[in-house]
């Protein structure tokens, strides 16, 4: 496949090449919607069936970390949009700056996610043999607020009265929690790889008002991954909190 400048040989014009790449990404995002769709359906049906256990699951998540991460991700969408705009108007150095900012914010998000995952491991909230929703309230550490622990204990007792099988059903919640946020994180990692590739291109001054398709197409992908989180956050963190 021969190539003249940025134009591949099987296209007639750069404009045709750009339309093709953009349409390709949009269609890819449609397939992603359906890919996540299966998970969202599984979540919805189980949330409906086991609302008590899912409420207990939501309560264990850290709202400060989750909410903070949501803000970080929205900021990264802004910087991504600014990178695309900078490329379109020809501000070459700003393309690099905004891309690096986007990558930094994405990395912060992933770092916070690791902290959250570690908490779940510490609290025996990973599905498997040692899963126990009561573990944290029964094994408080010195840093835990005794009042909070007492409140959690009381809530759990009520929940167990409503749904004696709560340990099994809460495992479903955490299977979905790790499945959905894990798949989302995997998309973030792929996105970070794409950003690194763009940053390399932007240092070489590849992106100009005439040719900026890669920035725009990766931007579409990045915004999509953010939107998935915008749905995941309320579904996993907010519904049935402290009922």
């Amino acid at each position, binding site marked *: 496949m021969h190539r003249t400048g940025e134009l591949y040989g099987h296209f007639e014009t750069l404009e045709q090449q750009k339309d093709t790449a953009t349409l390709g990404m949009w269609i890819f995002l449609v397939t992603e919607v359906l890919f996540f769709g299966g998970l969202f*359906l599984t979540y919805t049906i*189980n949330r409906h069936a086991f609302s008590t256990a899912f409420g207990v699951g939501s309560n264990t998540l850290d709202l400060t970390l989750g909410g903070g991460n949501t803000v970080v991700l929205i900021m990264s969408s802004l910087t991504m949009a600014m990178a695309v705009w900078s490329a379109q108007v020809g501000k070459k150095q700003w393309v690099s700056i905004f891309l690096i900012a986007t990558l930094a914010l994405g990395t912060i998000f992933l770092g916070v996610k690791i902290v959250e995952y570690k908490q779940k491991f510490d609290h025996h909230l990973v599905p498997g043999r040692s899963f126990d929703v009561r573990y944290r309230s029964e094994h408080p550490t010195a840093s835990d607020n005794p009042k909070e622990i007492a409140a959690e204990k009381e809530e759990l007792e009520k929940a167990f009265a409503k749904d004696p099988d709560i340990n099994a059903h809460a495992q479903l919640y955490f*299977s979905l929690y790790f499945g959905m946020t894990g798949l989302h994180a995997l998309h973030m990692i792929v996105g970070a790889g794409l950003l690194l590739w763009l940053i390399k291109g932007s240092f070489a001054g590849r992106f100009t008002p005439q040719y900026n398709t890669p920035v725009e197409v990766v931007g579409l992908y990045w915004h999509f991954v953010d939107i998935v989180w915008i749905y995941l956050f309320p579904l996993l963190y907010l519904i049935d909190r402290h009922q």
Partner: protein
Amino acid sequence: MPHEDYLNATYGIRSWLLTTDHKRIALLYLGSVTVFFFIGGLFATMIRIHLLTPTGYLVTPETYNKLFTMHGVAMIFFFLIPSIPAVLGNFLIPLMIGAKDLAFPKINLLSWYIYIVGGCFVLYSFATGGLDTGWTFYTPLSSIYSNSAVTPAVIGIFINGFSSILTGLNFIVTIHTMRAPGMTWFRLPLFVWAHYATSLVMILGTPVIAITLLLAGLERMFHLGFFNPALGGDPILFQHLFWFYSHPAVYIMILPAMGVISEIIPTFARKPIFGYSFIAGSSIAIAVIGFLVWAHHMFVTGESVYAALTFSFLSYLVAIPSAVKVFNWTSTLYKGSISWDTPMIYAFGFIGLFLIGGLTGLFLACLGLDIHIHDTYFVVAHFHYIMVGGAVMGYVGGLHFWWPKITGRLYPEYLARIAAVTLFVGFNLTFFPQFILGYLGMPRRYHTYPPEFQVLNVLSTAGASILALGYLLPMLYLTWSMRYGKVAGQNPWPATGLEWKTDSPPPTENFDVTPEVTWEPYDFQNRPDLGLTAGAPTLAPAHGDD
């Protein structure tokens, strides 16, 4: 003067394994789907030999479960779904719309590699103990109880799904953005319309089976509970998600075959196709309605009666666009000057077998009747009429029709006609008795049967051996013709599509000059370049035997 084409432009194994030429990638697919066809066929042969006697002839019950599972997995995921789109579609769509290649040539090659990686996982599963869940992977059998190599198979099918998604994506974008000047939407060959509809199903359905199998696989590996009732999960949810893809997947198999038939019939009837826009629209209608009928696989699995009524009604609706196609094909034949060339024999075979397969599908969509014939050989016969009688007939017919374009050589015509008839006879003898068996109550997937069913089972096995001959013959003479066949020329039939206006085999860039389309599709009258003179439309096609 030696002619440079896509086959002799470069040489060596690297020039094939790293090619981005859609025509070479199509041939890579041709080779690999053929391998899977013979693997799946081997399992089918063993099944039919086993069923020669009521007590079972060949294998243990456990092995029998593995045979029909592996037959289904190899044939559906690794032969039928990629066959026409990834071989013929890949080769022809850029040629038919006057493009130099597909929109994303590297992604096209990537999807072949994904197919190969997925295929290796599945072959690994076959080789290390096989797989006994049925191709449907119903939970909790597949996720908890089965002691066979389910995990590598699930991983393989999961991976292979992305090959299908990327092919569909590539086709849709190509058809939108790569058409030559003058190639408007309603001048597109119906083969391209059919592939557009197929691609819609590929991109909308395949991600759902991917996530479903991912969840089932995670459930098996980490003992999670998504579909396991013991842990609060819902096995019927798995079935809904599975059929949300796997019913539309039937249309991934049959729609491209319908596209092939829509090309063959006008060519050998020497007439413009009847009702072009209706055939094009019915492809899209089948793809759309096809997404709304999945729960008709679950009438006896426990769903609300209102859901069952709705899905039954919607299943009947699919018959309308399917019938539109059949009526339009037969109307095209009316007063045409029909020649009985090999592709045309396959096209006639397709219409007849698809008709039977489609009508028996209506029996199964009927709520009351379905309870009687559910999970019997009636279902087996029905879907083999669609998938083998329909999709495979279309595939083999299409291979013959475009063989001169792909290889530049003609196959031996009379041998090919004999093979086509053998295939048709063998197919009917194999599967028609199964309709009767199912109606009489023989359940599918059993390794034994009552002695009174033996005659029909022996007939079916006898038919299968004729069918096998019908597949081996084209394998042999098509391979032979690549070297010894008569040189074909640009347009041996002659046919009207753009792919016939370039050399056979085409050059790497497809066309020396980007073509400009000024004619309507399937118009034989205003095409002096075809060499058909007015008033004498019966110019004989060029044959390999002439």
